């Protein structure tokens, strides 16, 4: 069996798990929940296997092209973390991994109904976006022992921040008493924009011609809605978005009742939100910033060059540092600090995807 078959199976398993988790929320049968977990674990194992197989493949390709490198070096060079496709697959792997730990720790399976759609949709998105899934030759700049550690730790950090974002979204929905609250208004806009961009990307996919899937992210991104050549479509997109955000604001806190009925508590969400950041922050600092700086120093001759990727990592770091200080020393709690968790993840998304899409710089291989 090859790695792409296993990837296919794991994507399918995540979709099935998502459906089972959702039906668990509807029917509350314990057996259903156990099945959902079992399918998730199965999908996770398949994905792990697929990652290892891909690693083996690129290890072999590297070893063949550079016979003089040692086994360990070839192993590091072969790590499947070198382009957008591989990093997104790994990101999903991290999300599912962290989710399974949380399910085990908090003994609450209903969260799966919220996490698994993210994993399944992300994998489906990779499929439809037409990103290159081929094992590409490693360009000279990436031939470093730091590649594995730098990218690995950064992505565990990203995934942990992603979990804190989800928890913060749920927390603010649960903790809101009146629609006039600033935190709730911000919540509506932030969640609204996230969903609108996702939906717009879905429309991009549906509207683009199947023959031209090549470089989706750069040439199609939002071209079917906000960046359309037709003025009417653009105006229509903005109006629909405004209506969508208003609707989210009007009905969004209905989510509270759903969450309450799932025996999800505010305390639990706040705990998840904080703990994910407490794990993500040091890993991101060490893997993303420190190791990145050391690598940059040995490859580019300077440990910090204010490259857009570096700067956005630092911006993200500032936001989460602000979160931790606000919470620990400033005594901020609840919604106020959860808003910072939302902003932090916006920083993460921009660091990971936005920089590659909109800005150019030394890290441009991430966009291929």
């Amino acid at each position, binding site marked *: 069996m090859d790695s792409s078959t296993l990837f296919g199976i794991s994507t399918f398993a995540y979709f099935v798990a998502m459906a089972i988790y959702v039906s668990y929320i509807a029917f509350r049968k314990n057996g259903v929940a156990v099945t959902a977990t079992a399918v998730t674990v199965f999908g996770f194992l398949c994905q792990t296997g697929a990652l290892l197989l891909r690693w083996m493949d690129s290890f072999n390709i590297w070893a063949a092209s550079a016979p003089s490198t040692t086994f360990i070096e070839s192993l590091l060079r072969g790590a499947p973390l070198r382009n957008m496709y591989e990093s997104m697959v790994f990101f999903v792997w991290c999300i599912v991994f962290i989710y399974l730990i949380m399910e085990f720790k908090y003994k609450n399976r209903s969260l799966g109904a919220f996490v698994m759609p993210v994993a399944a949709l992300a994998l489906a998105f990779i499929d439809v976006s037409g990103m290159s899934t081929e094992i590409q030759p490693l360009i000279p700049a990436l*031939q470093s022992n730091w590649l594995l550690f730098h990218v690995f730790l950064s992505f565990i950090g990203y995934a942990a921040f992603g979990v804190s974002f989800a928890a913060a979204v749920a927390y603010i929905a649960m903790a809101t008493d009146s629609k006039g609250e600033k935190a709730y208004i911000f919540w509506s806009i932030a969640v609204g924009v996230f969903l609108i961009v996702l939906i717009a990307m879905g429309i991009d996919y549906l509207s683009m011609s199947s023959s031209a899937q090549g470089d989706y992210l750069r040439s199609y991104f939002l071209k079917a809605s906000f960046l359309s050549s037709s003025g009417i479509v653009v105006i229509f997109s903005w109006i629909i978005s405004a209506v969508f955000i208003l609707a989210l604001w009007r009905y969004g806190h209905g989510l509270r009742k759903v969450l309450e009925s799932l025996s999800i508590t505010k305390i639990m969400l706040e705990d998840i939100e904080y703990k994910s950041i407490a794990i993500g*922050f040091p890993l991101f600092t060490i893997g993303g910033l*420190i190791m990145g700086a050391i690598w940059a120093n040995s490859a580019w001759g300077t440990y910090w060059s*204010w490259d857009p990727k570096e*700067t956005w990592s630092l911006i993200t770091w500032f936001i989460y540092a602000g979160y931790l200080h606000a919470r620990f020393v400033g005594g901020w709690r609840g919604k106020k600090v959860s808003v910072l968790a939302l902003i932090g993840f916006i920083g993460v998304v921009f660091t990971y995807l936005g*920089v590659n899409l909109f800005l150019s710089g030394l890290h441009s291989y991430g966009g291929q």
Partner: protein
Amino acid sequence: MENKEKVNIFDGIWAFFASVKLAIVLLFLLAVTSIIGTVVPQESPKAIQFLGRVFGDNTAPAVYNIFLKLDFMDMYHSWWFVTLLVLFCVNLTVCSLEKIPRTWKLVKTPVKPMAKNVLETLPVKKEITLKTSLDIARDEFLNAFRASKYDVKEAAEEDGTQLYSEKGGYSRLGVYVVHLSILLIFVGAIIGARFGYDGSLNLREGGGSDVVYSRSGEPIPLGFTIGCNWYKTDYYKGSDTPQEFSSELVILENGKEVLKKVIEVNNPLTYKGITFYQSSYGIVPDAVGIFVLKVSANGGAEKTMRLQQGESFEIPGLKIKGTIMDFSPALGRDPQSGALTTYSDSLVNPAVSIRFDIEGSDGFTGWILKRYPETGIIKDAGLKVEFLDYWGVEYTGLQVSKDPGVIIIYIASIVMVLGLYVAFFLSHKKLWIRIAPAGKGSVKVNIGGSASKNRLSLERQAEHILAGAAAAIEGRLKKI
């Protein structure tokens, strides 16, 4: 009176910098302003293009002037951004100095016995009633407590005894270690900016230089000579994707070679604190190169020759004369016509055309490709010609930097990793175990505890101590 006023101003400034609110505001400002430099290109020509595109050609010049005043084209070194960073440092220092004594007290104040009613309100609490005597229970809980690596203290109470201890108090200092590492990074950056430089240097194959050039084009003397023996690009087999860029560099002191190293991307050369990085390459315009060929006949001895275009060479042992006719930096076939063509100016697929004149028969002409050595094997004539290099036309682009602050950055990195580990993954744990008689030959044990982080792990530890002691007490009962 005047004196007091001064003190108040000083206190006021101190209080201003000691506030966490300022820290949060500064973090926010740094985050928001940093965005500017990722959107506005940090180079004037590119910024002008960018502004023209965004604001239109009419308003762009006015915006450009404002941006110029605010240093937006070099914002990370602008006076206002540097001011923000300095304020951030001062804030960090003052806040830490303000808080360290309190934290130190918290670390140094020994844990005290806990009143029963308070003990029952702690975040971690366990309770058990055991059929045993007070003395046995005390001994076994003391053993189990110690087995979890606590330095246990004991306090006798009116109706029983209390065992208590703490661990990991120093973890509360981790955050200050992280703060210190950030200050160290600033120190390293300042040293680098003050005593170091960034430069670049293009060296052609066979060339050398005593200076490098700063960004503004000024020469900076090295104090030694750097030379380049050769530059080459390696490609992945069968494709034009580069696998590695490398150059052989030599260091000369007073004309004598003292160091030689092949550098690659990710593998620079450092000499006397100055580091040379492989950063680019190119072709020297109008340069005439030298063909380096390795020739052997009938599997015999190999001979390396260095020739120019038009020159001829004799092949040892065979009555064949070779003449270099033509050169292509990138020989390929036109996909439509199938004819040979040169598809690039860089040396992507160098090929040399050689005419072979054979005594007593017709000669022939053929292309020999550097990346495909099999093209140089001419079986009929028992001849092998390897095209090793077209030397002398390429230059290697070196990024040169001297940064005495880097060592401090590295130290700061290590300090930060340690600090982060202590601050986020270790916890200050306190545990109290209260043992009191509960009548009818049994005792009641209350365990209470608190942790600065990771309460769950303390919970497990408490359970472990309790289970260990209970099992030992049961074991004693069986022996009797």
